[in-house]
């Protein structure tokens, strides 16, 4: 009784053994390919269900795959192996009730092509909710021709989502085409390069590649062939429908803003006048964001947007958030988008700090302000895209009654921001009596002078200039 087979690899230099491999079957040693891989047929003389197996062993004695004939109660023998220049393997398979030629069996000539899977998708880039169509073309046939059992294919998306592929057609060159679809979810994904693997499972094949079929499971262990790929999913432009609250009082403490819309995901960021906020993703239709108190020091209407990172993504439409100036503002406290004396007390440096974080467009306005503050008359009707601005509080020279210049005008603008100090609010550029009194109120309020007898009372000297800078820089 032949019980075992051993394959030996020996040096042709001296015959010493390099490696060996055992089989449970009787065999011939058949054919090697251009990579010195070995195609080996093995079979078994005996009753029962003897498997007849073709094995492929690479040059380093790794078993790559085995193909078994699975015909019960037959003696199955492989004969006549050939290997062509394309790596296609040809052989005959003989089935006999008994290996004695007493009764007829039947035979098959078959070809085993190098197992290959190529794939295509209906696009290279997708958005949320798109349906991706996978088309896999493979040398694996719809059915294992030696056993009649259907083969299977699937795609595993993002390591865990299994998408079955259904046999579609056979090409003119004998490859089979398998198709499956997968709908990209619309929730909590942003731009991603999503990996996938295509797995094929062929009946009666054992390979060194692990597959992950569930139901039905692999016909035998590791029956697969696996190729990998990926596709890109871009996040869409977010849409902002509403915010809550819509209104806060200038000077209120920090609060949480709720943003409602669509196309939000975990990397979406709420923005306040173009500046990103600390944002929490709730779901694809809602975000929350922390509005720090410093953002609403001033009254005004501020642009609220949502930003999804690129590629894809972008900035949503704008919804205005109102920081009310408080009582006495008239008109419900709605800030008018003009540069008017309605502005609350603020400082230019605070504005600078904000504007430095503004979008380019807004910064252009800021630059304009700075330029104007350097000596050019500020157009009181200059429209800003957002919050208040005051001219620079930096004065490089002393000012006193009787002077007329742009610095005086800036001074008047600053003083007029507080009606207690400059109730008249006239912006003339001329340092007259009203301006002098406003300066005096400022000096007293901020204790620049200790009494009205101070020689600098009513004049903008070094101490007053410093105080102006201090106050309007807060």
């Amino acid at each position: 009784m032949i019980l075992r087979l051993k394959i030996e690899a020996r040096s042709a230099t001296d015959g010493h053994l390099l490696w060996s491999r055992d089989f449970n079957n009787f065999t011939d040693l058949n054919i090697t390919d251009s990579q010195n891989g070995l195609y080996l047929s093995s079979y078994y003389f005996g009753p029962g269900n003897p498997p007849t197996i073709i094995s492929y062993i690479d040059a380093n004695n790794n078993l790559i795959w085995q193909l078994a004939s699975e015909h019960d109660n037959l003696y199955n023998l492989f004969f006549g192996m050939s290997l062509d220049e394309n790596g296609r393997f040809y052989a005959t398979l003989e089935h006999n009730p008994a290996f004695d030629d007493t009764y007829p069996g039947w035979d098959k000539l078959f070809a085993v092509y190098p197992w290959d899977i190529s794939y295509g998708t209906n696009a290279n880039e997708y958005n949320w909710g798109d349906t991706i169509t996978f088309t896999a073309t493979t040398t694996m046939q719809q059915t294992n021709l030696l056993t009649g059992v259907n083969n299977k294919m699937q795609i595993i998306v993002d390591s865990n989502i299994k998408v079955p592929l259904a046999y579609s057609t056979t090409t003119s060159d004998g490859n089979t085409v398998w198709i499956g679809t997968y709908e990209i979810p619309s929730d909590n994904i942003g731009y991603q390069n999503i990996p996938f693997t295509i797995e094929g499972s062929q009946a009666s094949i054992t390979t060194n590649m692990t597959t992950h079929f569930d139901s039905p499971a692999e016909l035998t262990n590791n029956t697969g062939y696996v190729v990998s790929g990926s596709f890109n999913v871009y996040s869409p432009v977010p849409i902002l429908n509403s915010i809550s609250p819509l209104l806060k009082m200038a000077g209120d403490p920090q609060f949480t803003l709720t943003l409602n819309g669509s196309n939000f995901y975990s990397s979406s960021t709420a923005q306040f006048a173009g500046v990103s906020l600390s944002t929490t993703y709730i779901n694809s239709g809602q975000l929350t964001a922390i509005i720090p108190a410093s953002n609403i020091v001033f009254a005004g209407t501020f642009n609220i947007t949502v930003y999804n990172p690129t590629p894809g993504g972008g900035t949503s439409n704008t919804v205005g958030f109102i920081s009310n100036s408080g009582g006495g503002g008239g008109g419900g406290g709605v800030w008018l988008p003009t540069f008017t004396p309605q502005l609350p007390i603020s400082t230019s440096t605070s504005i600078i700090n904000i504007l430095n974080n503004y979008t380019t467009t807004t910064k252009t306005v800021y630059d304009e302000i700075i330029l104007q503050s350097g000596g050019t008359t500020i157009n009181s009707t200059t429209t800003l895209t957002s919050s208040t601005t005051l001219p620079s509080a930096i004065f490089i020279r002393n000012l006193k009654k009787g002077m007329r210049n742009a610095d005086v005008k800036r001074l008047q603008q600053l003083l007029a921001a507080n009606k207690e100090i400059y109730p008249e609010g006239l912006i003339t550029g001329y340092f007259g009596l009203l301006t002098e009194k406003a300066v005096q109120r400022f000096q007293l309020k901020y204790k620049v002078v200790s009494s009205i007898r101070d020689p600098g009372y009513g004049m903008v000297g070094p101490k007053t200039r410093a105080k102006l800078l201090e106050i309007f820089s807060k």
Partner: protein
Amino acid sequence: MGTSGGGNTILGNNELYYNTRGVWINSNLDAADGGLFSINKDTGQTIWERQISSADGGKSISLSLSANNTLYSPDVYNDTFTAYDATNGSLKWTYQFSGGHTNDESKIADDGTIYTSRENTTIIKIYAFNSDGSTKWMYSTSTNYTGDIKSETRFALTSDRLYFGISTADSGSYAPTDHGRLYAFNPATGELLWIYETGNISSSIVVDADGTVYAVNNSSSAIDKKIFAINPDGTLKWQFNTGLQDMTYNNIILRSDGVLLLSKNIFNFDNYPIVLIDTTIED
């Protein structure tokens, strides 16, 4: 392939040629013929087919394909050696042996000469046919063998050597005889160049680029098994004694990287050896 025995395959440019051997189809020894086929190797579509023989007792039939697109196949049942036009399957010529059976192996030289053999109980003849079917030369081993000559004769061919290995058996397949030899001929003339006493050779013979020929003694269980590397001049390059084992080597392949692949079948599980030999024995 239908009701028949398994066959061999050989590749042409775009064709795959294969044969089937005839089989007995019932206990009355009614036989089904085998066939010879040409198919498109990409599509499997049959190009031509022809009947070739009836049942032969279980031997698969070799195929050889020459550069001039001639298929050579022995017909063991009819004791002939036949050449077919591979283009259409038509018969080109047939050589009828007288007595004995052909062996299932043939080799084709670059000049179109085809080498094959036949044997009966005690002698074996080696034939060199020209491509037109005429006999170029023939060599007879005469009565050198006391045991029955087994059919497992093997060829290897280089530009200036035709190697031929013979195994014998007194009775039964595995009787303890060891009378096989390795022959070297001038393939052009049939001149016997040398004989090396290897013992039975029933596995294939391979030759490397330097002309070293590798063969394995495949004798019965009572005789040590040896692997031989023999120089083209018939001197021993090395030999490797794998010991007394209940097994036979049945094939050798020489890989392009200089590794010999050998297969052997183990007959007794209890004595299943672990072969780990790391010495070279030259004697």
